């Protein structure tokens, strides 16, 4: 008989257990269920041994090219991940635990989550953070819903500088809800258009959604705009790129009310799109409106400090359809990776990474804008990402370079009508001068062709 992999029961155990239960086969366990429901044998291949399975997966993996030189970012970045991140987060005690419902048996997960929440507060300049949401996109949606719940309004202004992938998501999530969703085009210099907002802001607006640096990499200081938003008692929801927060002004300092973002760059691999790390931070006054698990500090009877899931009355397992969100499982392990990452690089190292990203982008800007026919899309005020306008269709150029082993950036035309020639480049500390030089050279010849 073929063994069932991973099952611990031997045939002898099984016989003894059958006897205990007074049954003679497995089917008897299911005798209460109508026989007609029983399905046919599955049309699934026979099980593989571990070796065969691994050989298969390795073969599949080898069909991917991982040696592309990558300049594609668009919200998702290949930063260097120190080896200790995986070494620690892969400890069985972390990754094979459940949600910390029994705090005394889960202080590891809980304390790490508390430390993570602290780090998110310090990065964003906000007062409180939750312990994770799925990804930057769902976090942003949750942020907006939270703002609407708080303001009891249903109109949202979404800046076109917000990642268009997230804006697609916003449209999807709000389609059946009574949310009045409106997008605000960028200004000519590629940032939030103050004038349009001045016109649009009124007391029907519940939330204004901004991103900094925005999708085009442009930096902005949104303090005054946020003041305007607050004047109509709307909330400012801001999506941010946490690596940029090494150097860039914090949303907290700009007055943002709800801050969300994608934490992937803090120690998570790109992993073809996930798992990623949605984070959310807000002001203390809004904490009871915040979705997701929150870890708080407390004590036991002896006065020993400990950590628990707190403010659970917001959540689905208690409030069911009245909860702030339907989220249950989050991405705690990804949050763990983030706090390990941030601890490893530390205060100084985080600045180093930020400076390196900026440095690489600065070099490439210089080189690229020297090429005849290439124009900067916007001005030179970016962290690690910027857009240029090519003399021809950006998708075509990218396609030519990809065959030469270079992912030359993201052609924005797919999401921005009229910008078919615009290409968005991202740079991380991993990119070398040589790689940038190669890319620039190949791009130049692709343009000539």
């Amino acid at each position, binding site marked *: 008989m073929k063994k*069932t992999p*991973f099952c*611990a*029961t031997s045939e002898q*155990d099984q016989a003894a257990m*059958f006897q205990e*239960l007074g049954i003679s086969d497995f089917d008897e366990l299911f005798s*209460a269920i109508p026989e007609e*429901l029983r*399905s046919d044998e599955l*049309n699934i*291949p026979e*099980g593989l041994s571990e070796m065969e399975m*691994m050989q298969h*997966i390795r073969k599949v*993996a080898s*069909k991917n090219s*991982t040696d592309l030189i990558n300049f594609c970012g668009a919200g*998702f970045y290949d930063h260097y991940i120190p080896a200790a991140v995986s070494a620690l987060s892969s400890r069985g005690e*972390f*990754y094979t*635990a*459940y949600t910390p419902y029994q705090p*005394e*048996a889960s202080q590891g*997960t809980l*304390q790490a989550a*508390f*430390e993570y*929440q*602290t780090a998110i507060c310090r990065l964003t300049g906000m007062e409180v*953070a939750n312990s994770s949401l*799925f*990804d930057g996109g*769902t976090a942003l949606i949750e942020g907006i819903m939270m703002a609407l719940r708080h303001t009891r309004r249903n109109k949202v202004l979404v800046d076109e500088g917000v990642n268009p992938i997230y804006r697609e*998501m916003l449209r999807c999530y709000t389609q059946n809800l009574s949310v009045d969703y409106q997008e605000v085009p960028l200004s000519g210099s590629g940032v939030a258009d103050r004038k349009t907002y001045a016109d649009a802001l009124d007391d029907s607006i519940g939330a204004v959604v901004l991103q900094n640096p925005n999708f085009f990499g442009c930096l902005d200081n949104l303090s005054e705009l946020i003041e305007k938003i607050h004047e109509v008692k709307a909330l400012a929801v801001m999506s941010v790129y946490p690596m940029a927060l090494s150097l860039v002004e914090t949303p907290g300092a700009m007055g943002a009310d709800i801050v969300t973002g994608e934490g992937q760059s803090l120690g998570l691999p790109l*992993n073809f799109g*996930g798992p*990623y790390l949605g984070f959310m931070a807000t002001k203390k006054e809004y904490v009871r409106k915040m979705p997701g698990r929150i870890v708080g*500090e*407390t*004590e036991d009877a002896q006065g020993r400090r400990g950590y*628990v899931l*707190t403010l659970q009355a917001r959540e*689905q*397992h208690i409030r*069911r359809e009245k909860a702030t969100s*339907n*989220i249950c*499982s989050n*991405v705690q392990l990804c949050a*763990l990776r983030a706090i390990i990452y941030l601890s490893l*690089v530390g*205060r100084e*190292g985080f600045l*180093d990474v930020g400076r390196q990203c900026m*440095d690489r982008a600065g070099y490439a800007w210089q080189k690229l804008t020297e090429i005849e026919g290439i124009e900067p899309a916007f001005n030179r*005020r970016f962290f690690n990402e910027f857009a240029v306008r090519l003399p021809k269709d950006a*998708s075509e150029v990218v396609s030519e370079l990809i065959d030469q082993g270079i*992912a030359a950036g993201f052609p924005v035309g797919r999401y921005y009508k009229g910008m078919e020639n615009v290409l968005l480049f991202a740079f991380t500390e991993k990119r070398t001068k040589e790689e940038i030089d190669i890319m620039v050279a190949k791009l130049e010849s692709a343009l000539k062709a």
Partner: protein
Amino acid sequence: MKLIYEKSSPGRSGVQMSSIKISPTEEIPEKYLRSQPAELPEVSEAEVVRHFTALSRLNFSVDTHFYPLGSCTMKYNPKACEAAANLPGLTEVHPLWPQLRGGGLLTQGSLEVLYKTERLLSEATGLAEFTLQPMAGAHGELTGVMIMAAYHKDKGNEKDHIIIPDSAHGTNPASAMIGGYEVVTIPSDENGVMDFDLFRDALNEKTAGVMLTSPNTLGVFNPRIKDICNAVHEVDGLMYYDGANFNAIMGRYRPGDMGFDICHLNLHKSFATPHGGGGPGAGPVGVVEKLRPYLPVSRVEKTKDGTYALNYDEPKSIGYISPFYGNFGVIVRAYSYILSLGRDGMLGTSNRAVLNANYLQEKLRPLFEEEYKGRCMHEFVYSGSCLKQYGVHTLDIAKGMIDRGIHPPTVYFPLNIPEAIMVEPTETEDRDTLDHFVAVMEELFDLAKNDPDKLHAAPVSTPVGRLDEVKAARDMRLSYS
């Protein structure tokens, strides 16, 4: 234990980061820059390693403890599936590459994993088509509800509510609400399943659908499932199957065959992907043929030349529910797990999950003074009420269990059973472990009768005793300062 911030000291540094400069520093006007660096810890790499290693050891986990947490399917997570998911050929792929022109050919491996996993899940559930994008069970539910809404809108149906039994997991009503529907809750009957008559009363033309878990959180399989499906379909409602408990039936029953239209699976439960201390999981959603057009984009397709490609051109699609293709790393684990199980292993797994649960249920019945009410599925619920006479509560039993090296079962859920204790052993535990669990339970019951204060004081073996949750909520110390 000290926080990592409390171990920090100015000027200490962890991993050496690069400091190569290749371009002259460009001055960014100050107003765009933060005035102070973020106060991240300043600790050596060695200290970080010790800190998080020590933290890890404060956890109970499947790798260290029996973890019969009901409704959570805390089965063993095979290390080979971890290894598969960590292959650099899979982890180092940017999700936008296949969306660049010509980039699809460079990511055939990842696309193949997606495509094949969808096929396998379709076969396992009897549903025509799957999306792997939902990032957890609740996210899958919401996706399902959105698909319902898209279907009804497309057909011009006017629907305003979803029917959900009271034993449902809290995510079900929450998802229905967030998806834009009212929730109609149906109480359970004496067998623990949705009361059929009350359900019939609630069902009407405005019913968008019904969300059911079967076996439900009590570990009971609803025998009238076909009748329910038929009734709902008569009003053009859709049947949603919450597949978080799929471990009980995999390889034996299929939601599609039973008459369900939509179903999510929790890969982090039935499919052995680890729970990560809270996530990430994955909650793929399968649908019957007629709902295929509404699935989120992108869709992964096999083209005529045998290559895989992304399709975003689905006009009736609900759109983007995830930025990309779901929690790919989790999907790889599930894919490799399914390949390992194969046809027979699927059935073998659910058989043994149910056997283990029944064995424990049987062995514990005298202790809990429960009557025989029939077999359970992969989990069962007993009530700790019998201990009330000694002043002992289910919570005390749970904490006493911690001191004996076992993670407590789920307690006080479902809400309709007083002092509920919900046990799900899973198939990856051997009989010795089950017998040990029984012995520990007996010991705890003895203690409850003879020395209840010992139990009230538990746990004593953990770094902290019972924590003051009220203080936590009142003080709201949510970050270190």
